[in-house]
């Protein structure tokens, strides 16, 4: 099976130029061709792993555990204004 590289790249929100796509296609097909050996394994009745030790997800009390660190957290953002994240216009 041949992977549609540009379609998957769009799902992953990565722009690929044609050269990159041309280089990646055979590599991805080779990787997927290798993992296709899994298809031949009989896994009837086998429970898929969810956690390596089958541990349950812990719950905690619904209380605030971190203070207001907006300035520190937004200091690493590419663009902010008045405490908001700025992105290109979404709605016309």
């Amino acid at each position, binding site marked *: 099976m041949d992977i549609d590289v540009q379609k998957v790249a769009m799902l*992953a*929100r990565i722009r690929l130029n044609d050269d990159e796509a041309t280089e990646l296609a055979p*590599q991805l097909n080779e990787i*997927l061709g290798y993992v296709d050996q899994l298809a031949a*394994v009989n*896994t009837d009745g086998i429970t*898929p*792993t969810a956690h390596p030790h089958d541990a349950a997800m812990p719950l905690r009390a619904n209380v605030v555990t971190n203070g207001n660190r907006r300035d520190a957290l937004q*200091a*690493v953002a590419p663009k902010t204004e008045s405490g908001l994240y700025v992105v290109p216009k979404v709605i016309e």
Partner: protein
Amino acid sequence: MPFSSLSHIQTRLDNAETTAVEVAQLYLDRIATHNETLNAFVYIDAEHVLAQAEASDKHRAKHGARALEGLPIAVKDIFCTQNGPTQCCSNILKDFHAPYDAHVITKLKEAGAVLVGKTNMDEFAMGSSNETSAFGPCRNPWNTDTIPGGSSGGSAAAVSAALTPAALGTDTGGSIRQPASLTGITGLKPTYGRVSRRGIIAFASSLDQAGPMTRTVKDAAMITSVISGHDSGDATSVADAPELDWLAACDKTDMKGLRIGVPKEYFVEGMDAEVRASVEAALKQCEALGAELVDISLPNTKLAVAAYYVIAPSEASANLSRYDSVRFGHRCDNPEDLLDMYTRSRDEGFGAEVKRRILTGAFALSSGYYDAYYLKAQQVRTMIQQDFLTAFENVDIIATPTSPITAFKLGEKTDDPLTMYLSDIYTIAVNLAGLPGLSQPCGFSADLPVGLQWIAPAWREDVLLSAASAYEGATDWHNKSPKAFDEVSGGES
């Protein structure tokens, strides 16, 4: 002194034969001399290192020594640290400064350790050779034409060349053990859930685990005892993990009564003949120490790499979706619209291997393929775990080579991703099963180090440490140092 173990430096500090500042200066000098050749560190702040060392000396004088008082420890660029940049060796995190410390960094600081700097790694820990780093490849101190392994290649090279006595790495498919093996040092991957992942930049969350890379087994125990333990900030950190006496486990000097499983699937064609000979000689040594070797089978071993290269990329594609250039990370210039901003920022920010993995994962998780790839791989993962559970009914520990080959030449495998993936064939199953694993030096092939891998049941790092300590005590491999970086003794320290 530079090639001393962490515990030896600790003794010297305790006896007031040296100070934390002197120790820090010694390693800073070595970094200044050798890092240009090795590219093991991607960030060093000498002033900050000395300030920590000074504070440590004061703490010792006033309150006594904590568990790692004054001991230099380098950390992989994957650990969030408030001091200095945390970039995961990726352009998408260029100049990123983490607003908080990873949990294990906090633990190291609380134990009095002196954090030396950030070490080189494969971008987002995706690689087996450290060649995918956005900051250039790191080199193996044993032969600088060869790779140090990956993804924790910088940590491995730094310890191997004694630019630091110890370092932290992370291990998702072998990224502590394989570079430890290829650079002749000791590396421990704890049981999944033993060490908090909070503040460690996520690659594949059901597999990632942090651990030490050191000169000796005891040093690995010293660090793991500090960084392990439940953290309510990491939902996968296990709350009722059995406590261990980490240091006492290292007192073992024999293997009397130890049943060592030797899986036939790990000694197959394709492995370097001298690697095989070294590991077989190591097993003979174990017998001489009183162990009993038991032939075992882990029949689904051959499926591990395939399952891993579905599961790890799938989790990676989900984890790396957070790099959207909104809250942090690289943003492209003049985006036309939101979609253009996402796609172009991610194209510019991610390197080729990271893109390969994200796309592999996005494909495996995409509509119509989920059952055939992701679900199937998670079922095979259960079978691989079951192999180990069955084996451990009959043996205490499993011994294998860490890597089928020794360090290869830079550039040798970069054009062939699948061959690169297959170099992790002996380490990957351990992550899939969530087990603890340890690599220690056990010989040389053509002057390059060979590693012996120990695998224990979940939560039994003590069994690993005891076996590895007994082997280390009976052999001299851990005392070998790369000549080009050992001016004083020219190879022996």
